């Protein structure tokens, strides 16, 4: 069985984040990497996952990629989405 990893193209990232509901938070500098705490931007965005119903974002540094269970530092989502 293969480990499925979803991917988003860097050129479509803004549109994707807007659909997820966190684009404005990222543009305002309110989102931080769950591992290293650095401010997430469209340039250093690495990955996003959902852990314990909360969205968790990571920067593009290799050491910040989580193991399968994910680490938890949830971020606030704009609007009334999860």
């Amino acid at each position, binding site marked *: 069985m293969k480990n499925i990893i979803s*991917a988003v193209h860097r050129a*479509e990232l803004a549109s994707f984040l807007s659909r997820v*509901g966190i684009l404005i938070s990222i543009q305002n500098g309110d989102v931080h990497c769950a591992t290293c705490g650095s401010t997430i931007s469209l340039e250093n965005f*690495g990955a*996003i*996952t*959902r852990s314990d119903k909360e969205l968790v974002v990571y920067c593009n540094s290799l050491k910040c990629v989580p*193991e399968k269970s994910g680490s938890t530092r949830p971020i606030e989502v704009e609007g009334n989405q999860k």
Partner: protein
Amino acid sequence: MIDLSSLVGLAKSYGLYAAVLAILLFVIWQLARMLLDEEKSGQFRAAVFRTLFSLTGKRNHEKQYISNDVSSRINLARKRIHFSSEILPEAVRVDWVKDSQGSTYDINEGQFVVCLDPIACQEQNIVRLTNAVVSRTSLAGIRHLFEKPLVMAIDLNLIRTLLSLTNNVKAMDWFFQNEYSPCISTDAALADWNAKVCDIDERGLFTRILLVEFAQFAKRVFGMTPRPFMTGEIEGLVRFLHAISTKRYGQDVPLEFITAYIKIAVLLVADTSKILRDGINPYLNSIAINAQKGVNTIYVIIWNKEALGARDPRAYQEFEQKTQLLSREIQSKTRLKKVGELKYDTIDSQGKKRKAKCLRYLVES
């Protein structure tokens, strides 16, 4: 394989059509082989989409190239490093998130969405995906038992091993320059564990013993409450294999590692004079003693003696015969069941490249 002389012979005997038919059948056979192997067909698809992208410039073609190229490279590489019945780490498949304007997108629990760069940065995509696969699928179930510096050292070396097998020089360069070197230079504890793991890897024991034993350990402690001694067993195994890897000629180091959940022994067939003088009985006795101590896995490492072959061909031949006899006698005279055998290139303590063989045996109760 079809060669030119056999084709000419075929054409002379049966006519030109027979030769054309043979070529056609050969092409169909090769295509079928490629299509049946998902990873090889992935590389073929990547080449097709790359050509399409260079002709059309469409993003969909670019995305198909990126995902097919990166996943087939990683999956082919991981197949080449496995030793036990399971392949470590797991295979990967990249699914693109559909880009539909206006609608909302809900990320499912546990779903992992990674951002990949355009085709010009494919080396970064390869490194990023390799890292995601390694950190998310290797050491599964025991990752929480590792201290952060050690788990990072293992991840970095597994990524390096996989990248070296993807045949992408740019990806390897990018990894060393942007990730590996900065990580090592800023964390002393990581640098220390990394040096140990590198020594183990240079002797060929990283993927063939360390990772295999970690996978076995994960099965044994699955579902148990994490305890400090488990972390001790993990670090102890690394130190044990490091001592063997850095062993100098004539130096005595422990060759058994027996703890609550890891019970292994390593048998080194490296000293030519010992096996030529004393024969194979000391090795068989050592196996019997280890089996009595409760060891459940025994690794036999045989170093090739090519240098001896040039200096003393007779002694070399005798060494080869004795090591072959040892393999046969282990099978017939002990309670060991061979579950794996790998030949590989390694670097000895003097920095010379050598060939070696690693045999893995389970002790049957």
